[in-house]
């Protein structure tokens, strides 16, 4: 059988699926009596039209890069990690503990400590489902869903009963010391002059980009990455080649959990400066959409995270300026997951057939 050109798989089909998702979202906007063109204008204006908008768009994108990479790494080992939400929640706990318990002298040492804290807690939260999958065959999707809920309860308990400062009614930790606050885009040389004081985008955006390169290197340039991909393609073949399934599932899920946990350096350390309930705000689930859209490649994840960052910031503006609730973004997100993930074969079949037929016709001519 003829192979279809690569650009169809990595560009044409995702873009067409995205287009369908947007067209249906547009119809939904029409149905609730609003103007989709005007909605797009407000969204673009609010998220990309000003440095202020960009500051938020890139802040959200940073979250989604981490969670998207988390889903992608697990996916290469054919594990569907739906637990990014819980792992990022625990990452937040790790970051908060590190920042509150150690008197950090400056932000970059604090950042290193927080990264370790977030990654270790996130990885630990992924470790139990991973172990149960690898050793006892418990379906990782179900266990990670359960662990999302357990994480929410655990965080609730920690904030209400343990970490809440005395006298405070708010279920949140104390504020982190000022020395640990990360420089935002406003504080940076060269670009600082463009961004206002209030933009939340901060240095962890660059850490997210470094993480993209590292994940790329890991998956395509290391022995472990090769083993992960081999295992993901065919478990029996990998086993036959002497690759230990337990080791691969554990390694992939630990890295995945660590990446999700690292997200907390952005939202908890970089923006909120304290740990609050539900600080992840669904970013763990958006990681699924981001990884699907980005075809599990770090560069694709980066682009998809930017797209979702734009949607998130734009959705917020939409709720402010029009009467369209921000839940429109949830619908768009659902449609992106649906068409790029579940309905993928709908377009793929006919498109691939078309190209194969064309290639065959050319050969005969």
């Amino acid at each position: 059988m003829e192979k279809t050109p690569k650009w169809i798989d990595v560009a044409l089909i995702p873009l067409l699926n995205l287009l369908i998702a947007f067209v249906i979202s547009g119809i939904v906007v029409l149905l609730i009596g609003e103007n989709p063109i005007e909605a797009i204008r407000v969204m673009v204006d609010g998220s990309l039209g000003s440095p202020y908008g960009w500051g938020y768009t890139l802040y959200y994108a940073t979250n989604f890069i981490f969670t998207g990479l988390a889903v992608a790494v697990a996916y290469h080992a054919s594990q569907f990690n739906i637990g990014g939400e819980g792992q990022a929640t625990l990452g937040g706990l790790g970051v908060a503990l590190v920042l509150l318990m150690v008197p950090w002298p400056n932000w970059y040492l604090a950042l290193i400590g927080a990264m370790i804290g977030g990654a270790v807690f996130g990885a630990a939260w992924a470790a139990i489902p991973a172990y149960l999958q690898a050793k006892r065959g418990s379906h990782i999707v179900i266990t990670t869903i359960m662990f999302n809920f357990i994480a929410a309860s655990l965080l609730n308990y920690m904030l209400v009963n343990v970490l809440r400062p005395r006298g405070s009614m708010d279920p949140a930790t104390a504020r982190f010391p000022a020395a640990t606050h990360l420089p935002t885009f406003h504080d940076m040389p060269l670009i600082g002059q463009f961004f206002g004081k209030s933009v939340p985008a901060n240095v962890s955006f660059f850490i997210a980009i470094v993480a993209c390169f590292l994940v790329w290197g890991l998956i395509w340039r290391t022995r472990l990455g090769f083993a992960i991909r081999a295992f993901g393609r065919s478990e029996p073949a990998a086993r036959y080649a002497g690759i230990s399934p337990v080791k691969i599932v554990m390694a992939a899920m630990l890295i995945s959990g660590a990446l999700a946990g690292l997200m907390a350096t952005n939202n908890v350390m970089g923006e909120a400066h304290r740990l609050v309930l539900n600080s992840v705000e669904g970013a763990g689930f958006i990681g699924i959409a981001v990884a699907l859209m980005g075809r599990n490649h770090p560069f694709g994840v980066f682009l998809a995270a930017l797209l979702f960052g734009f949607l998130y910031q734009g959705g917020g503006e939409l709720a402010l300026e029009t009467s369209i609730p921000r839940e429109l973004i949830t619908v768009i997100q659902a449609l992106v997951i649906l068409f790029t993930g579940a309905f993928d074969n709908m377009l793929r079949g006919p498109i691939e057939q078309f190209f194969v037929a064309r290639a065959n016709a050319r050969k005969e001519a």
Partner: protein
Amino acid sequence: MDFATIVELLDSAVRLGTPLLLACLAGLFSERAGIFDIGLEGKMLMAAFFSGAVAAVTGSAWLGLMAGVGGALSLSLVHGMASITFRGNQLISGVAVNFLASGFTVLIAQSWFHQGGRTPQLSGSGRFEPITLPGAEAVKDVPVIGQLYDNLLSGHSILVYVAFAMVPLTWWVLFRTRFGLRLRAVGENPESVDTAGISVVRLRYTAVAITGVLSGLAGTYLATGLAAGFVKEMTAGRGYIALAALIFAKWRPVPALGATMLFGLLEAISNRYPNIDLGVVNLPIQFMQAVPYILTVIILAGFIGKAIPPRAGGQPYVKER
């Protein structure tokens, strides 16, 4: 704790367990036919919204019920197309269904009612009112049996009785009818069903449709029985607890009743006693809320019996060419 309190707790366990039971049986049909469904949450939410909205507009809980079931069925159709026709990933489709419901319900609720994503308060015939079973008034002063009959068995809405009736019915359909045999076969070994000349696609679509109807009942009960109207995200993870109960029950209808009532009881207890002091340890409310999920993980890990899902679950069926 006196007897009356225990009866009260059990009564509220039945109320809170009913949506779980309906959703659990819904998932049972789908998963027994080899279609994983983590979208129960979304279907319930969709049904809760449409039943609440239509009941509010028409003033009829029955019309609400039909709309609720219709809403859940539409998402079933989406899930069916993704997992059966287009042979996509059933888990991803389930995730999408959940988000679709979560966003869509608020969007439409805001557009129709302008109340910040809720539907107007239901009253009178817009709700499924409690039914007093015959003789409940008369025996209410008889100790123990009378109390149980009046407080526990009587006084629930019709959907509660429907849910309980669904348990033996599901058992009978699955294990005593030709359709049930085929349905279970298509979840274990679809090739054999295909070889026997029975359409795998049709069987699976039927199963997914039954799932839609039952999760529709579950969502309708939430909005028109348990509460009085739809509020944003009102399912609050019940679809996932139902999924947990399904695993807990090892995909069997009668244990599903036990599992969902147990989880309902846990919720009832944590509603009534936020902190439970056992003398040695003090169980916080957060722990009580996490218990169903922790139990499910333990069951899945195989430490208390092994939960083995239907063998062909999650795999799209490709007919041999």
